[in-house]
């Protein structure tokens, strides 16, 4: 795959995999309105993923469409960040992840509206509004949970602590990121870090939550080195498609 295709695939995989995780909440959310809201987020992300995967396939030029890329790659070929693939153990983790990721994603989308790749720019422009809503939603719940009951505060703090290590990877630029930034296709994510940190810290502060200490910073998603749970996510996602080789749906 060429650089732009790989770059589009990274963006698409982030959205696809988080959408898959959020879809789990369908018929499981704490209240009906939240079921609607989380599914909305999942649908927005899926809507972002599809043209990005299609674009990656088109640039690759080997005839792979969005479904070939979603359903017929193995664990080591997915390029999403680790933070989007972690399973949620409770609602606090779903919200903590959405806060940490959508704050990053929004900044990335804003930067990518100027991408030299028209498709990427177009998806980003559309996504800015969507992701701004995701972030607002996460902020609202962070406040409610952080400044709610003793239990919700403890759970939300634990969720933030658990996810914090995975919030470093998005900002660690590799050579591809730098080349793409240089060519005006992408953005150097390191440049988004300060703004991200300021926003997250302010939100956590308002929610009476502490900002965790930095330390362990796992990475590997961009190289296809995922967490052990990721293979199970893919097994489920791909099971039906793979069981019917060559079928159309």
């Amino acid at each position, binding site marked *: 795959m060429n650089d732009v295709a790989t770059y589009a695939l990274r963006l698409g995989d982030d959205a696809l995999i988080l959408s898959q995780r959020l879809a789990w909440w369908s018929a499981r959310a704490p209240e009906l309105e939240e079921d609607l809201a989380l599914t909305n987020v999942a649908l927005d992300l899926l809507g972002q993923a599809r043209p990005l995967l299609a674009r990656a396939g088109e640039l690759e030029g080997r005839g792979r469409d969005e479904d070939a890329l979603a359903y017929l790659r193995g664990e080591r070929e997915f390029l999403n960040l680790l933070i989007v693939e972690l399973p949620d153990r409770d609602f606090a983790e779903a919200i903590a992840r959405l806060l940490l990721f959508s704050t990053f994603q929004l900044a990335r989308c804003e930067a990518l509206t100027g991408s030299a790749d028209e498709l990427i720019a177009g998806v980003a422009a559309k996504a800015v509004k969507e992701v701004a809503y995701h972030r607002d939603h996460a902020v609202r719940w962070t406040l409610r949970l952080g400044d709610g009951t003793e239990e919700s505060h403890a759970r939300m703090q634990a969720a933030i602590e658990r996810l914090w290590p995975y919030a470093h990877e998005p900002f660690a630029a590799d050579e591809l990121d730098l080349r793409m930034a240089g060519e005006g296709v992408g953005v150097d994510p390191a440049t988004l870090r300060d703004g991200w940190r300021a926003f997250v810290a302010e939100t956590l502060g308002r929610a009476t939550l502490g900002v965790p200490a930095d330390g362990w910073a796992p990475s590997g998603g961009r190289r296809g080195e995922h967490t052990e749970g990721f293979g199970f996510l893919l097994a489920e996602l791909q099971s039906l498609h793979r069981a*019917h080789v060559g079928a159309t749906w």
Partner: protein
Amino acid sequence: MIADAALVEAFEATIAADERIEPRDWMPDDYRATLVRQIAQHAHSEIIGMQPEGNWITRAPSLRRKAILMAKVQDEAGHGAYLYSAAETLGVSRDELTEQLLTGRQKYSSIFNYPTLTWADMGAIGWLVDGAAIVNQVPITRCSYGPYARAMVRICKEESFHQRQGFEILHALARGTEAQRAMAQDAVDRWWWPSLMMFGPPDDESPHSAQSMAWGIKRFSNDELRQRFVDMAVPQAESLTLTLPDAELRWNEQRGHYDFGPIDWDEFWTVVKGNGPCNRQRMEHRRAAHADGAWVREAAAAYAAKQDARRVAA
């Protein structure tokens, strides 16, 4: 409290004129209770109905189908929300209704007590179950109770969209590989009879129907609606090139309708009474989701109370 004769008269005149009763209008207690029961059951059906289809979201076989299915299940949550709001106009809170569902005092449609075993069930549910729901619900858009009628207008529009999507799923499968075609036929075989049962017991065993008809809540009898559904489904099945699992199904020139075989009402009552394949699972799932979410709802309430207190203090 004895109702004022003038109020009764006004209510009856509204019904007679086929106009709408609105929340602030006087209405008989039984009318209110019947509506609450029916709207609540309908709302609960939407909520429980999310489970069998939600079961396939993470495994949908293409991203396009995944997006459509997610949106559909989301619509069901939305329908549940409108319907709970409609019920609330009758003076019951959503919390009460939820409680009634979770304790089993109010029912939901028995159709959702069947499992979704393959992807083709997404097609069969859309085509047959939503199809039957539409036949049931279109008359309710003219229901005498305004909020229910208006909710139903919106719901029916979306349901018909869902029905078309279900038909498309089956259409693609029926024209697909041998395995896909078999999957589609199998799903139709399993969902056909339960879909016919969705219209409820035969007219001669449906005790509440007459009063509901008189009140303009119900417009057609169970058997009338069932026949309408069969008449609609048969040509659609033909266009899908799938068969319906009823050897007695044939056009009756004289009646101008399709005749169909006897329904297994024992199965119907077994499922209604709680012994369908998934009754326990559906309720356990809903209770678990509700229980798991308790701390979140408490947090939201506590936060709101704190915010109110801050506003007052400021």
